[in-house]
């Protein structure tokens, strides 16, 4: 079987797996967030933490919950890292330096999982499990909660209540993320992923040389790392490391896990607004963007143009033999289209075309299909913009799902989508202008510029993957990238919750003769066009200086 044919079969297998789960998981998640009854264990938990689970919250209260929860999460994660030497199972690893600890705490709480440290040398089991694994679950639960609050904005009418943030966080964790993660972790164990409480194993090779192979509690974190679109590796090489991703089967399963919830959430949306075709339209936009970028990246890697790749006879630098090119680009496009940011091959060593495709995938706003929750609310905001643009063309007050999109709604949507480009362009521009930056880069010329652009695109979109040749341990990068992660996460969340609040307050208007139908293919084209147009207008000059220049060289 040819490489290309095998790769196409793999893509087909992935799509079948997702297709099988689409309706059952999507509908299950809709039931989770609409059910009246609490599970007994949830009621006990609400009593324990003193939450009145029956009360709905207005959007500012909901938002305060998200912010407060994320703040204490950052603080606890920072403290755990700083106090590492006194924690059990730290294997003598010292306190994480303050700048790294701040960056890492922000990174994992914002679902970014950008990593500026070598995990197998820096972190012991307690910080990995009680710190990072916890945020792998909870940051995904926050994303889910915000997405569900926005759906309720469309569904509810004439109310100022969006639901209860603590109930949504708890149900997302207890009923969706933890059970799925446990099943996924057990399957990963069966596929050969490591799960050890030992620091490492000492070996003496056939040549008599001694090597220590670090071990870690991998499977439990690996499962939620992908399922929660987090992406933080328990080893420095992330999913390229054989202990995290030992074979092609575990590789495909990890790609499936990262796409699973973001894809199925479009069904959850369709079910909750009582018109599944509304969800089908959104998932088709996501799918076309994903497939298009996959084709670009795959072609570029099979036809490299850089002198080093030509001298080597192919683009295998930074890739593992067991994955090869097709499984590496499939992983790369899926990890940048979701907000995962895990890598099974080094994106920095991708060709100009493929590296550019992963970069553009993030710059589209991470909606192909986006992170857990963030992907759905990201594309809904873009759909709001698309409806608004269509309304401008025909001169009518636009409406979406029976809600009028007036000044408040469009302003909130515009703020939400403009934050990321603002951070990326200002951050990358500032970094490039500073004299110290050139020394932090691993590559020169157009590719060096791409390393900087990628760093800010990855953090502002809460992706976390990297053109990892860039050295980001200096205080300038640690702090500005940390701020990029915070603004890129919480400004859109506030805007989305404000949007949800003003939508919920409206009465539903019945569709009239001039209403744009949003469950038809032409709306998918309109939304897809909006996604591409916004990104192209904003980022074309920057992309031309980096990956496009490299690809055309």
């Amino acid at each position: 079987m040819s490489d290309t044919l095998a790769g196409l079969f793999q893509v087909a297998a992935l799509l079948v797996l997702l297709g099988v789960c689409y309706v059952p998981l999507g509908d299950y998640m809709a039931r989770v967030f609409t059910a009246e009854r609490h599970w007994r264990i949830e009621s006990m938990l609400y009593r324990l933490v003193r939450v009145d689970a029956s009360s709905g919250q207005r959007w500012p209260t909901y938002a305060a919950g998200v912010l407060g929860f994320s703040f204490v999460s950052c603080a606890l994660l920072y403290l755990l890292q700083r106090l590492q030497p006194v924690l059990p199972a730290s294997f003598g690893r010292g306190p994480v330096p303050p700048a790294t600890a701040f960056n890492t705490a922000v990174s994992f709480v914002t679902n970014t999982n950008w990593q500026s440290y070598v995990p197998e040398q820096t972190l012991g089991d307690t910080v990995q499990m009680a710190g990072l694994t916890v945020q792998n679950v909870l940051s995904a639960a926050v994303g889910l909660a915000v997405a569900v609050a926005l759906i309720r904005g469309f569904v509810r009418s004439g109310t100022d209540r969006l639901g209860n943030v603590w109930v949504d966080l708890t149900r997302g964790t207890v009923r969706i993320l933890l059970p799925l993660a446990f099943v996924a972790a057990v399957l990963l164990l069966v596929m050969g992923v490591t799960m050890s409480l030992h620091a490492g194993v000492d070996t003496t090779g056939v040549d008599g040389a001694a090597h220590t192979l670090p071990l870690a509690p991998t499977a439990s974190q690996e499962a939620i790392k992908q399922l929660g679109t987090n992406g933080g590796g328990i080893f420095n090489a992330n999913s390229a490391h054989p202990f995290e991703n030992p074979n092609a089967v575990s590789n495909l399963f990890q790609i499936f896990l990262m796409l699973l919830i973001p894809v199925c959430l479009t069904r959850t949306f369709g079910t909750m607004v009582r018109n599944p075709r509304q969800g089908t339209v959104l998932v088709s936009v996501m799918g076309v963007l994903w497939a298009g970028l996959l084709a670009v990246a795959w072609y570029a890697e099979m036809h490299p143009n850089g002198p080093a790749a030509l001298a080597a006879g192919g683009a295998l630098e930074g890739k593992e033999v067991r994955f090869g090119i097709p499984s590496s680009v499939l992983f790369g496009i899926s990890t940048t289209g979701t907000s995962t940011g895990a890598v099974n091959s080094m994106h920095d060593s991708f060709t100009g075309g493929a590296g550019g495709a992963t970069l553009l995938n993030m710059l589209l706003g991470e909606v192909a299909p986006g992170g857990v929750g963030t992907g759905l609310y990201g594309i809904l905001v873009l759909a709001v913009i698309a409806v608004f643009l269509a309304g401008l063309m025909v001169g009518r007050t636009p409406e979406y799902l029976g809600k009028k999109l007036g000044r408040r709604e469009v302003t909130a949507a515009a703020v939400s989508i403009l934050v990321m480009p603002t951070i990326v362009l200002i951050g990358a521009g500032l970094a490039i202008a500073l004299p110290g930056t050139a020394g932090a880069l691993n590559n020169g010329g157009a590719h060096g510029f791409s390393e900087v652009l990628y760093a800010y695109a990855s953090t502002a979109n809460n992706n976390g993957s990297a053109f990892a040749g860039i050295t980001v341990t200096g205080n300038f990068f640690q702090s500005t990238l940390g701020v990029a992660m915070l603004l890129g996460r919480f400004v859109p969340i506030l805007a989305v919750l404000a949007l949800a609040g003003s939508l919920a307050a409206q009465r539903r208007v019945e569709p009239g003769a001039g209403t744009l139908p949003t469950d038809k293919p032409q709306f998918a084209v309109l939304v897809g066009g909006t996604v591409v147009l916004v990104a192209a207008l904003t980022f074309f000059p920057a992309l031309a200086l980096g990956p496009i220049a490299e690809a055309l060289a």
Partner: protein
Amino acid sequence: MLSTLRRQTGTGLRLLIVFTIVCGIVYPLAVWGVSRIPGLSGSAEGSVVTAADGTVAGSSVIGVDPVPANPAADPYFHTRPAASAQGVLGPADTTTSGGSNKAADSQDLLHEVEQRRAAIAQREGVAPAAVPTDAVTASGSGLDPDISPAYAALQVARVARVTGLPVAQVQGLVAQATSGRALGFLGEPAVDVTTLNLAVQGALHR
């Protein structure tokens, strides 16, 4: 507004503590418990492989390049280059996994590829053009356990000559260490170097 934020933050802290116990202790330890099941515990602890004399010789899923005592009589199959290595080929620093992160238009990388190609061609006594791509590029992890069947085939003649084993026997050992695509279409055909070198040593000491 501020009092709302303060109250919600307090609730968030209480919930965080509960979830730290559930997601950070109960969940990983439950998965660890499952990993103790016979059949899973071997790979959970790193797929350790032992030599004929019982020493822990490495992991069947981790490749670390062996260094011959005498480079002129090199009895080992070699892994791919590692970015963490001191030289252009290996061995890797197993405690810092990762790739070179060098771009296809990097002059550094071009130079390294040329050095690797020359060194391997000389080691194997073949023309530089015969050295396959995976042999001259560093892997993503630096610990790639596998090489392509082409790179394994390139090394057979030397290993057979140095060890004194018949070429056909070495080819047989390579075939045993070779895995095809999973389910016929997943991943790439690959030869596990750690297992292969142990098999060669085992054949020598039989």
